[in-house]
């Protein structure tokens, strides 16, 4: 009984994961069905996010140095992972926070799932590119850089499409709110910076206060 439930769960997960490939080629009805037919799952979204991070890290190690020389002394793997996760998180929160005030139908979780599903083209293109990079010379680099750019543009355009579908926005409204979301992201980053610098100032104040106190007492 337990195993069959597990198999069911896995089947559902696998089906939702496969649905990401459908979304990658059919952005309109794909992302509509993603939320309205509930064909996306968090598990599949997380898998795609993991694949994206994996692609980015493996790119570092296995891409030919001709295309991407790496200064290893300077690489911080956590910053590297953060360079994907942090913008995604800020985007999801910023987009949801804004659209929810303006008739956006998508919920926070749905924005997250849809955004992650949009990332699929990145690992899909980057993994083969890692292999390709080891087969090209410097003159043939253009193939690589064009395909690499395609993977990024694909992701960005798909995210815009996806947001339109899950929020049920018209095309112009969608574009408008995409731009607005970018500004929302900037505001969030600004507030975070402010917050952290204030906190560190505050902490520093109390630490020096404590030090002074100890100094006087002793």
């Amino acid at each position, binding site marked *: 009984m337990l195993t069959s439930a597990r198999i069911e769960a896995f089947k559902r997960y696998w089906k939702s994961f496969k649905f990401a490939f459908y979304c990658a080629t059919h952005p309109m009805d794909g992302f509509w069905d993603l939320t309205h037919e509930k064909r996306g799952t968090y598990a599949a979204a997380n898998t795609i996010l993991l694949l994206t991070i994996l692609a980015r890290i493996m790119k570092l190690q296995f891409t030919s*140095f*001709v295309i991407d020389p790496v*200064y290893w002394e*300077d690489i911080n793997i956590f910053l590297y992972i953060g360079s994907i996760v942090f913008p995604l998180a800020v985007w999801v929160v910023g987009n949801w926070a804004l659209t929810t005030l303006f008739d956006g139908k998508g919920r926070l979780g749905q924005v997250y799932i849809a955004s992650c599903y949009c990332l699929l083209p990145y690992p899909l293109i980057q993994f083969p590119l890692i292999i390709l990079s080891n*087969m090209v*010379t*410097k*003159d043939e680099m253009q193939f690589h850089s064009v395909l690499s750019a395609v993977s990024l543009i694909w992701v960005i355009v798909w995210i815009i499409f996806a947001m339109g579908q899950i929020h049920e926005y018209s095309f112009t409204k969608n574009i408008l709110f995409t731009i607005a979301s970018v500004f929302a992201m900037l505001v969030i980053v600004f507030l975070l910076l402010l917050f952290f610098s204030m906190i560190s100032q505050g902490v520093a104040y109390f630490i020096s206060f404590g030090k002074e106190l100890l100094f006087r007492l002793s």
Partner: protein
Amino acid sequence: MKKIQAKKLFKRMGALVAGVVVLACSSLAFPLTAQAEGKYTYCYDYWGDVQDSPDAYEVAAVLTCDDLGLEKPLSTTANGLTAVGNYIYICDTGNNRIVQFERLDREHFTFVKEYTEFKGNVEVNTFNKPRDFQINEDGDIFIADTDNNRVLKLDSEWNYVMEFVKPTDNTLDPELVFQPTKLAVDTAGRVYCIATGINKGMIKYEADGTFSGFVGATPVVYKLWDYIWKRYFTTAAQREKMANFVPTEYANLYMDHDGFIYACSANLAEEDLKSGSAKAVRRLNLMGNDILIQNGEFPVYGDIYMGNGGGYTGCSKIVDVTAFDNDVYVLCDKERGRLFTYDSQGRLLFAFGGKGNIDGYFMKDQPIALDHMGYDLIALDSLSRTLTVFTPTEYGNLIYQAIDQFDAGDYEASGNSWKAVMDRNGNYDLAYIGVGRALLRQEKYKEAMEYFELKYDDDNYSRAFKQYRKEWVEDHILVIIIVLFAILVVPMIIGRIGKIKYEIDTADIFKF
């Protein structure tokens, strides 16, 4: 920039720890030794990190006026140094004379003669602040007699032949006093000279003394914003007081064995050098076009870090240049007192030197005159009035040997020489690339690729890889065809079989 800063912080911490350990050890066991050694010679790696290197040159001798046997010491403005065969000539500008020395052995020079006048039927047959001295292949002597406003041509017996005077050119300010400072003379007797206040490039005279034009002016560098501001937002009166957009003057010339002229400029702005709009050194052909090859990871402008500190500001100020017969050339930076050696591809071989009162270092802010005898470098520091003789060490000789062997087509020997260099300096990118290039010429592509990959040489790597790939495809052509066949044809056949099977299964005639 951030990368470099973070890197430096990290390094500094490392250095601090190492320093403390060393101090602790040495104070326990040994007295502290002099710190001057060690950080003298360096090179940049692919990332622009400074990599210490074994010394490529050592100081054979530092010769004072006394050592040279001069009765009357050199003036502190002496600045022309020319090595011809076994002799060197110094233009002792302040004493209005030219002095000749002969090299006896590695570290000994002896005074031969001083020249204060020449024979011939001219009004003035003495020198007035001479600044440069050249001898061409026929033995004719050319002297930039600066304050007499002429370039003199004398025969080998110091008899007056002719003089080159201020060019008659409409674009020149008639008020301008012609003060030639540096010369280059080609085999046909044509004279190229630079003069104070003339920024149109080199003044070119034909062998008969006629002025034939300005060649090799540096392109004018200005910022777009400055141009807009000056063109549209200033009055004529304001414009009058602003600096003009003019080409920079050359600081020095050197004619190499091929007849190309190395010209260096000292007063360049950091940002122009970094953006590539100005060049510290140009190698000019007879048309005045720059043909200097810059294939290195960094442009040819000396130090790539231009920070202020320790009394130094900004970029390297290249005041002299000399080129060996193997197209390796040495630049002399007066700002930090360093000598930069580049190969014919514009890659930094090594840099060394500094400011100070130690052998092999130079005094502050004095133009240093540089020339070479074979691979030995001779530098004149006019403030301390000394000649410093640098001779290549075993390491330096190995580098030159490897370069010469490669140029001569002896690739295997070159590879071995580079390996010997690598044994002495494992952080030297060019050694790895040199070995790789030798292997590449010997058609050992796979091994060459490994060496290039180690030091991020993508051009050569691609070259080797292209050949390697070609070989690989030729060797495995059968496998590739089979795999391609399997990928393309097999699914097609399976599909066809499936279709036939489907048709048979659904065919009407088999239905009962």
